[in-house]
């Protein structure tokens, strides 16, 4: 059994987690988290670390030239740059509504890229 310390990155609370890991590498218990998402994060981080990814895509006809986008759920940490490549070729046209799907099943991850805000058409 060993203790692993890490900082939870799920939200800005930055809880300090202490995780008991047994000799086979399995998580036995998680402490220090102030919500259940900290527990889930700790277990994932030690087995298959994932991250939310936020970026922008080109948009035309809107108040600005970029539309902020976000992954619909967390993606494997190692796939971040692949997803960034997929975003580089996208161009959308206003109007866009918050949560509109911008790329479906991005990089075959089973996760969508969605608009993180609405952008109206401007003239």
């Amino acid at each position: 059994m060993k203790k692993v310390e890490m900082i939870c990155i799920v939200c800005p609370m930055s809880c300090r987690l202490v995780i008991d890991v047994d000799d086979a590498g399995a998580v036995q218990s998680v402490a220090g988290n102030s919500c259940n998402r900290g527990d889930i994060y700790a277990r994932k981080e030690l087995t298959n670390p994932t991250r939310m990814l936020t970026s922008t895509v080109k948009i035309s006809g809107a108040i600005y030239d970029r539309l902020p986008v976000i992954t619909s759920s967390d993606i494997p940490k190692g796939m971040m740059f692949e997803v960034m490549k997929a975003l580089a070729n996208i161009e959308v046209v206003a109007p866009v509504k918050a949560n509109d799907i911008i790329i479906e099943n991005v990089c075959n991850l089973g996760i969508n890229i969605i608009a993180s805000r609405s952008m109206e058409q401007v003239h």
Partner: protein
Amino acid sequence: MKHFELVVIGGGSAGLAAAVSAYDNGVSNILILERDKELGGILQQCIHNGFGVHTFKEELSGPGFAERFIDLVNKKHISYKLNAMVIHLNDDKILEYVSPEEGYVVIQAGAIVLAMGCRERTRGAIAVPGYRPSGVWSAGTAQRYLNMEGFMVGKKIFILGSGDIGLIMARRLTLEGAEVKGVAEIMPYSNGLPRNIKQCLEDFDIPLFLSHTITKIDGLDRVSGVTIAQVDGSMQPIEGTEKTFDVDTVLFSIGLIPENALSEEANIDMDPKTRGPKVDESYQTSLRGVFACGNVLHVHDLVDFVAEEGTKAGVAAAKYINEKLKSGSIINTIPKEGIGYIVPQRIQAINCDKTVELMFRVRKQYKNVELVIKRDDEVLRVIKKKHLAPAEMEKVILKASDVAECQHSLSIEVVEVAA
């Protein structure tokens, strides 16, 4: 001169939350004045996630969080002006603003909520030696260029200061293909949230140089390099510890300053520590009927707490407008050993319903200490803390009944406990 029951200066998270809550508490004649071309404030450039965990129990991006409040403002038909810059405010609550649509306008407010936010400290604030080449930016400006307007500020980047905006920009620029060579922090600890050190620097193997500062920026027309050095206990560079980096861009993330030119013009009492107005339990400034909330009051770490403060200021402004806000005997809050500041700076127990929240920051990092809260020099509560850091705002919630018994002051101090 047009009259509004409530004028909110600033349409960011604090101002929007204040307007919505004032409306919900019976104020209908509200005007929000926003200088940008849309509502939402700085949230619109903070495209990263992590917002709204407290307010909406959801994890949103900055623009997503802003949209929730903008939708509420629209649903309630609260009026707002865009591209409207308030240029003067006086102590009779008369405001002057300019906008391309209306020109120069003078209005009278019954009550005012100050929600102007904050601005970034710049290179000038810390006097970094070197020429003045292009390629030196504040981190927030670079963020706006990249996330809203679609311009990269450089390809090889060094960042001075480990504030959250700098850390978030380190990740963002890396994802967009830039090479971030490092982050230097003059303090022996980071000034950003621990989660950002991990997910913005460690995830991408970006080195963090603690107790280091920039000693030279090279380049005549464009930045061509940067030299950093370790600093000693009095923050002076130590000779022989210099490292140079081949970069074309330097970002500064060295702190935020509440934007209070208007508050000062209206002769509102300021707290030299927070650089925001001094307020009471109702977020009322020294000028009756003028309230302050969000980053104009004191710089926050989390937008959720900015919005929460805005909501409370809106409730208080509504009380004032409906003549329900009272004046009572004043209890001062006093930051003692280890405490940088406390907001609110004074409390009138008569206006406290159930609880009183004291928000504060410690001056340095502590491990295994006690926070001691005293009422009139008598210990009221002791809170054990495993960890305290200036980068993380602390909050203590007191019962209104406990505060009501106070004669003159409430104080907070950090007490080191023997191991």
